[in-house]
């Protein structure tokens, strides 16, 4: 079959570039992210309550056990409250990020817009990355809200090293993207039920040093903790937030998260692409 001269219409897809990337980031974050999310007012209220309540629960548990103000060697000298406030803030951040793309896919399937988004010239992989931006911001807000409660109401003492916190947060988000893509691929295929996100949100509370230090775990299963980037992320963040740790002092943790991202993001994208082709073969992209 012969190829003919292609003359697209005056407003057919134009080449991208930084401005196009920023414009799409705005469209996905503000229009499709914020405007849709904030239009469900009850959801907004309940989400904020959901961020804050666990902090108070663990505070009361700590008070009851008499560990609230204590400085324990296993906690590297920080108070238990400071320990779990940082743990909860960033475990929530990461586990929401891991489940977020899957949730986004599911919601697009339900709304019937998934096919139309995938029909556009924007690459499906890019659609996923753009889609994750609003979630990153929202979950970052949740982490900040928990930290504010910790500092303002529970007396957590900060000794901040901002560059460490910023770099660690970015790397923590990026290193979670691979798992997020795996979860998105899962939901595109199975439509309901996401073991990746479920496993991550429950499993990490126990094994990633969220509520108690990894040193407390039996030695035989401690390796599990160190296979999760959140464990390293929390180490770096606690250092940067509570002990003024410099970038150099947390470099091994940062390097581990970067390595994890380099390995898992291509794997996640590859898996998503494979599942997308499979659903295209079965004709079930929009099925929910």
């Amino acid at each position, binding site marked *: 079959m012969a190829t*003919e001269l*292609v003359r697209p219409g005056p407003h057919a897809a*134009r080449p991208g570039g930084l401005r196009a990337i920023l*414009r799409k980031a705005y469209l996905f974050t503000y229009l499709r992210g914020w405007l849709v999310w904030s239009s469900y007012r009850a959801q907004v209220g309940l989400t904020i309550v959901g961020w804050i309540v666990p902090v108070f629960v663990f505070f009361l548990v700590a008070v009851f056990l008499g560990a609230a103000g204590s400085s324990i060697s296993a906690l590297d000298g920080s108070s238990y409250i400071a320990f779990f406030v940082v743990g909860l803030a960033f475990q929530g951040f990461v586990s929401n990020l891991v489940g977020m793309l899957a949730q986004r896919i599911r919601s697009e399937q339900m709304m019937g817009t998934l096919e139309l988004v995938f029909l556009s010239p924007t690459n499906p992989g890019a659609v996923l990355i753009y889609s994750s931006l609003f979630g990153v911001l929202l979950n970052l807000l949740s982490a900040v809200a928990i930290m504010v409660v910790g500092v303002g109401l529970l007396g957590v003492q900060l000794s901040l090293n901002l560059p460490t916190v910023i770099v660690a947060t970015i790397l923590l988000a990026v290193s979670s993207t691979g798992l997020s893509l795996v979860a998105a691929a899962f939901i595109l295929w199975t439509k309901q039920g996401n073991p990746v996100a479920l496993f991550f949100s429950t499993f990490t509370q126990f094994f990633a040093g969220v509520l108690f230090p990894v040193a407390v775990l039996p030695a035989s299963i401690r390796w599990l903790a160190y296979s999760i980037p959140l464990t390293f992320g929390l180490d770096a963040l606690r250092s940067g937030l509570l002990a003024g740790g410099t970038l150099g002092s947390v470099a091994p943790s940062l390097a581990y998260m970067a390595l994890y991202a380099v390995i898992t993001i291509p794997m996640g994208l590859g898996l998503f692409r494979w599942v997308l082709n499979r659903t*295209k073969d079965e004709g079930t992209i929009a099925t929910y």
Partner: protein
Amino acid sequence: MGLSIEVRDLTKRFPGSRSFPWSPPGRESVALSGVTFDVRPGEIFSLIGPNGAGKTTLLKILSTLLLPTSGEARIGGADVVREEAQVRSRISLVTNSERSFYYRLSGWENLRFFCGLYNMHERDLRERMQPLAETLGLTETVLARDYRTYSTGTQRKLQFLRAFVLDTPVLFLDEPTSSLDPVSAEEIRRVIATECRARRQTVVLSANNLIDVERLADRVAMIHRGRLEVLGAPPAGTGAQPIRLFVRAPTPTVLAALEAFARGAEPGAPVRWEIDERAGGVVVRCWTRDPRATLPGLLESFWQAGVQVEQVDLRPFVLEEEFLRRVDEAGPEPEEVPG
């Protein structure tokens, strides 16, 4: 300016579903089987067929939303499987589903989002949209309202506005007037006729409403049980009627006879013809304004070329009758086909 669509021997089989991952797959269903046709640039090509015949499956394959099992489809030369990114930048789709926009965003916000996916700047969108929105009766007030408040007609108009603003060379329309009242349906038909013709967009229109086909299509193809047959132009399109013949001769001989007839015929007598190779012969459809006046000359031409004419059918072509006849001939549908 539209682009051509070339489809060759396209087959789509859906794997049977499994109750559990370890259970054996259910029976495979064939949605399309050896479908071959071309759509010319700027043509409005219509697909008709019973529900579940494979029309939507075909549109989805052409839109890159579904992978064919075998065969090839190209949009402006780009393969829908191997060059899907190129294909996606050349096409837009209007579906019969109201679930094609975000309910919690306004019409304008939805347009900004979806046109932004095509890298369209907001300024371009406004500039481009204004005359089209007026044509469709989508005022600023309407566009400022949430999509969830729109009537079915307005929802469909917003889909057309999105498609026309994008101005892609190829437009797929899947049941564009279904569930619309007669006034809205007529309005939509008028818009398709005016805008698509003005832009010379190549349109593939899948329709159950045969009025759409008769009013809009340049050519019609029928899909039934996954097989596609190009029927020709609908009667209302050109005022032409068909002479259908079944002849026995090699295809080049039949074509040579037709060309000889066209050269010798009076101006305007034969409109055009199509041939379809069948086992043991060739089906010829010759479209002309006056079949009874044209037939003697056509038979003479075949006789001189040594083409054996076995059957002649002068019955006028009425789309609905043709549709019902073909479905009836094929017998009852054995099973439902997804897609």
